[in-house]
């Protein structure tokens, strides 16, 4: 048998056959390791979890045209810059002034699935439109016209040239995003209305949109329906993107989009991106602080247990020295026991830590957590380092034990 094998045989025998005495130390290391691995898991998973949470508050990047509008193809190009696994939702919008019951309403043509994904906070009473001829009506519009889910509604569009091609008016209305803003246009065009050929299209209201915001003053239809109603494909006025990424990464994506597509200007929705970053920084600092405190407490507990162990085993230490053990051998054996204890505690703690993190994640974010295999060796190594460090002072006391102590039988 080699000396190394005998060394492991001795230290493992000490831990296994004296398990009732080492249980408290093992428990404290395991709990420390559990908190460590759990919090580190949360620390690294929080950005992902928080990102998902923040995406519920809507888009964090908008792509605007440099001039009047940009093409669908350019929109697709911009969207393609974002990695698929980071893109939560992409909603292209084209806005046009239309009329319901002879009054102007702002209509948005969009990809319903994209809008649903990028604006999860939108509350729809009824159903989202899923095909042609279906309309999602903002709550404000629905109240104004007495529209209810399931009711038919006729939407009219007057081609621009009828108004004399006043582009400025239309653009202003879009940015104003309020039906009231079009009342002047309505008054001006009232007399001309009878002379023109309006485009009309019948829709069925499938849902009423309640957001608490300006979206309630719009009506929403598919891009195809809007193209059919207006008689032209038109371009996109805005592309809203909801992306799971931190602020720095988002800025990089925006730059990449601006480089890749020269007709658009991508910008961060600063309010969302910044508050996400602030919350993350604070949360991660808190996790770090708690981890440090827990590790310090674990060290104190292990140091106390090791001090008691050295005192309790004074006779054994004296005997080993009497048999010819050097101070270095005794230190190695006790340090070996401490480190082995750390390794076992670390292993148990990592497993418990995953369940701890899972519990926290389910409770706070209602989302399951991803197990990181790398955390196993890291936690075990950290536990070994903590127990090794905590054992140093108590173990140094072994050098002061006199082997004659054993012979005197004291």
């Amino acid at each position, binding site marked *: *048998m*080699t*000396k190394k*094998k*005998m*060394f492991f*045989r*001795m230290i493992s*025998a*000490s831990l296994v*056959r*004296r398990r009732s005495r080492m249980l408290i130390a093992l428990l404290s290391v395991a709990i420390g390791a559990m908190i460590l691995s759990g919090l580190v898991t949360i620390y690294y998973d929080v950005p992902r979890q928080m990102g998902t949470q923040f995406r519920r508050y809507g888009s964090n990047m908008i792509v605007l045209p440099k001039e009047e509008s940009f093409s669908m193809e350019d929109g697709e190009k911009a969207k393609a810059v974002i990695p698929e696994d980071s893109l939560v939702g992409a909603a292209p919008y084209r806005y046009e002034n239309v009329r319901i019951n002879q009054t102007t309403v702002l209509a948005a043509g969009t990809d319903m699935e994209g809008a649903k994904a990028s604006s999860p906070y939108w509350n729809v009473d009824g159903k989202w439109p899923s095909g042609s001829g279906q309309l999602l009506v903002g709550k404000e519009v629905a109240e104004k016209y007495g529209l209810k889910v399931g009711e038919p509604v006729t939407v009219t569009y007057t081609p621009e040239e009828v108004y004399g091609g006043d582009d400025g008016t239309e653009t202003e209305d879009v940015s104003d995003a309020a039906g009231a803003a079009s009342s002047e246009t309505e008054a001006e065009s009232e007399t001309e209305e009878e002379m023109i050929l309006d485009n009309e299209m019948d829709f069925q209201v499938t849902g009423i949109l309640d957001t608490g915001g300006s979206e309630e003053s719009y009506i929403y239809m598919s891009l195809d329906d809007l193209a059919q109603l207006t008689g032209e494909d038109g371009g996109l006025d805005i592309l809203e993107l909801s992306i799971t990424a931190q602020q720095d990464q988002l800025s990089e994506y925006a730059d990449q989009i601006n480089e890749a597509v020269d007709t658009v200007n991508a910008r961060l929705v600063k309010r969302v991106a910044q508050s996400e970053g602030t919350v993350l920084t604070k949360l991660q600092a808190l996790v770090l602080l708690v981890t440090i405190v827990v590790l310090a407490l674990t060290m104190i507990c292990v140091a106390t247990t090791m001090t008691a162990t050295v005192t309790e085993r004074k*006779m*054994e230490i004296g*005997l*080993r*020295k*009497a*048999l*010819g*053990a*050097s101070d270095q*051998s005794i230190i190695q054996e006790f340090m070996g026991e401490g480190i082995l204890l750390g390794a076992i505690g670390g292993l148990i703690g990592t497993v418990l830590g995953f369940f701890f993190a899972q519990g926290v994640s389910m409770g706070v974010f209602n989302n399951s957590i991803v197990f990181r295999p790398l955390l196993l060796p890291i936690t075990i190594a950290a536990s070994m380092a903590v127990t090794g460090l905590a054992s140093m002072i108590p173990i140094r006391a072994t050098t002061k034990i*006199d*082997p*004659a102590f*054993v*012979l*005197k*039988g004291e």
Partner: protein
Amino acid sequence: MSLLELKDVSKIYGDLHALDHVNMKVEKGEWVAIMGPSGSGKSTMMNIIGCMDTPTEGQVLLDGRDISKVSKKEQTIIRRDKIGLIFQQFYLVNYLTALENVMTAQYYHSVPDEKEAMEALERVGLADRAHHLPSQLSGGEQQRVCVARALINYPEIVLADEPTGNLDEANETIVMDLFRQLHEQGTTLIVVTHDPEVAQTAQRALVLRDGHFTKETVNNNFTGVIHYND
């Protein structure tokens, strides 16, 4: 040249002279008993001969080398290489088996050899108890494990402090018989005892009182077999 020689050795603690100008010689292969009442200086002498303490004055020569002024580190090396210790209280590591306890002495000395350790246990009649923990062994069996451990590294001197002090008569006979066998094999034995029957078994007995040797008895009828005076 004697294997062990104490020249004018004193150990002084404040005003107390635990050993006071003691002289002693032990030849290689000799079996010597040191007797004395409590407080006579037996333990101090054990510590000095066993290289666990150094004298205040005088010289201790082991195999011709003066060990009276060596450092703690050198004391450890001498203890490991030249001396086998047997204690009254047995002193086994309580979480190691009998076999592992014997191997521990090998571990500190050189390289652990399970086969050799098992043979040492066979010599003391404990092969079948090799994998038992000390708590599963009787007092006599524990002391026999200590004997096996003391012998495993072939020490020049086996130093036994009251080796039968905690044993019943049957186990005392077994242990003394082991000592006789060791002596026959040429091992030098120094046995510290207060038991006259154990002391009489040795070739030579020295009586220690108040830090001095007061009497020396040579056993002319030495057989190495213990005789009880009823």
